[in-house]
């Protein structure tokens, strides 16, 4: 997807950053009617950091991104990019973004679309380079409405690169990409970030966050509930799901076992959610020798969030909790 012939920045990508931070979010709140999408987010990202926003559907990732890009105004709190308001960073071409929603403008070819977008920036990356970096030079002549989902995603990635930005914000960038394209995408993202650029991306996958980010910020219910390296987040999410066909077992018996948090019956199989899968497996093998087709997976994100959020996940989005939060 990318090769070494591209221009690489040698000068340090720093600017008039009054407080030295690339991104600084303070006390951000945003509600849509009765939905409190963002309820108090504080976050500082240093230049050059690669940060993942990890959170389930509706956690407030996209809303936070809109706030930090200046696409939405916060109810309270501030978003600063390089010490200034988002609009200033945007018009200076210091920010590139791949938004989650929104189609590409139809009736244009990919090259035309990127060219028009580039015409709206002061010092854009050459159109050819943006297309090469995003791996879309082979589809440059295609009409935007005929692209596959993964191709469209790569075109949006090219749009994020066009400003030749210092901060790149990517909202669930690999959605609709197949495994190979996903790998290429992350490789070119890493290459782009290597020049000292700051990257913030949203994802649903702990693995993706752990693999590609220096720092993982976990968001749930509009708040940051964990912030650290991928490894430290993973360690906190110890839960596993053991699934198997277990003749002779019953839901009740399984539930009674040590460290088991939940049991589901799915298509003749039991899915046993537990904290210590090693211990549970040993016990199961001893008790039910007929057990077969065993699979052990890491807890899915929803379970992980339940674990990380503890009781806060059952907080109803009511206004009564606003005071003193």
């Amino acid at each position, binding site marked *: 997807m990318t090769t070494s012939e591209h221009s690489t920045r040698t000068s340090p990508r720093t600017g008039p950053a009054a407080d030295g931070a690339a991104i600084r979010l303070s006390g951000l709140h945003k509600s849509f009617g009765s939905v409190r999408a963002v309820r108090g987010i504080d976050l500082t990202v240093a230049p050059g950091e690669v940060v993942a926003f990890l959170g389930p559907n509706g956690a407030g990732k996209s809303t936070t991104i809109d706030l930090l*890009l*200046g*696409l939405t105004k916060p109810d309270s709190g501030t978003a600063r990019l390089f010490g200034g308001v988002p609009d200033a960073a*945007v*018009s*200076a*071409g210091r*920010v*590139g*973004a791949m*938004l989650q*929603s*929104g*189609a*590409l*403008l*139809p*009736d*244009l070819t990919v090259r*035309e679309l990127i*060219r*028009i*977008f580039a*015409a*709206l*920036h*002061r010092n854009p990356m050459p159109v050819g380079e943006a297309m090469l970096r995003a791996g879309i030079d082979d589809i440059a002549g295609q009409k935007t409405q005929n692209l596959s989902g993964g191709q469209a995603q790569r075109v949006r990635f090219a*749009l994020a690169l066009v*400003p030749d930005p210092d901060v790149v914000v990517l909202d669930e960038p690999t959605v609709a990409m197949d495994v190979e394209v996903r790998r290429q995408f992350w490789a070119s993202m890493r290459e782009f970030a290597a020049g000292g650029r700051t990257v913030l991306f949203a994802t649903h996958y702990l693995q993706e966050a752990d693999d590609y980010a220096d720092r993982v910020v976990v968001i749930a219910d509009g708040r940051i509930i964990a912030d650290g390296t991928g490894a430290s987040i993973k360690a906190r999410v110890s839960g596993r799901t053991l699934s198997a066909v277990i003749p002779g077992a019953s839901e009740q018996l399984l539930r009674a076992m040590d460290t088991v948090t939940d049991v589901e019956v799915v298509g003749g199989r039991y899915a046993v959610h537990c904290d210590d899968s090693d211990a549970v497996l040993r016990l199961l093998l001893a008790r039910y020798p007929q057990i077969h087709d065993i699979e052990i997976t890491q807890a899915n994100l929803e379970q992980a969030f339940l674990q990380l959020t503890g009781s806060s996940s059952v907080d109803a989005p009511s206004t009564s909790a606003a005071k003193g939060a």
Partner: protein
Amino acid sequence: MTMTLNYAWMSALSTFRNAKFVIFTAALPVIMFLLFNGLYGDQTSSAGMSAGVYLMISMACYGAIGASLNAGARIALERQTGWNRQLRLTALSPQGYMIAKAVVSMLVALPALALVFLVGGVVGHVHLSVGSWLLTALVIWISIIPFAMLGLVIGFLGTPDSTQPISMLVYIGLSILGGLWVPLENFPAVMTTIAKVLPTYWVAENGRDAAAGVGVSATGVLVLVGWTILLGLVGMAAYRRSGRKA
């Protein structure tokens, strides 16, 4: 400013390459001109102007106005697809966006205007000096500014589904009432009274004045400027409203 104009120019160019757009805004007026011109082209209208010139001006206005309104519908599409959110992540300011869209509306009107005039000169019963030919085109082009504003209003208020019928209705309604299809002499006098407050009427009237070599009417200028200001303000308000929602 160069950025805004460059953007407008590129947008207009990509519009010209859209076959559907060209057929509906340029081909249709040309065909209508050829049809009517074949029937009445060699007659002389009541004002002493050859019917060929009269028809050519009417159809050029009709095509230019249609193209201009159509450009507005594109705005609704950009809004619905979310493309305007992406545009907000550029150096283009909100005012720049409005200006660019108005400029695009003006630019895309040119092919229709030029094509009808060209056909008029080649096959029509139209005999004008090169100077008055160009002057007439220029006067018509400037006179359609209110329609560029109307396009913005429709684009910022409507959805892609609603803009198509709305702009079609407005387009055909204003064209008929303004006398672009059938000269107003053929209607009851009250129709002429109505026409005189409509921008469509004055676009064509200004064109006819220019072709005849007389100055455009002050009333006409006033009506067109009035519509421009009114629609410009509504467009601005609609833009702010749509911006907040986006």
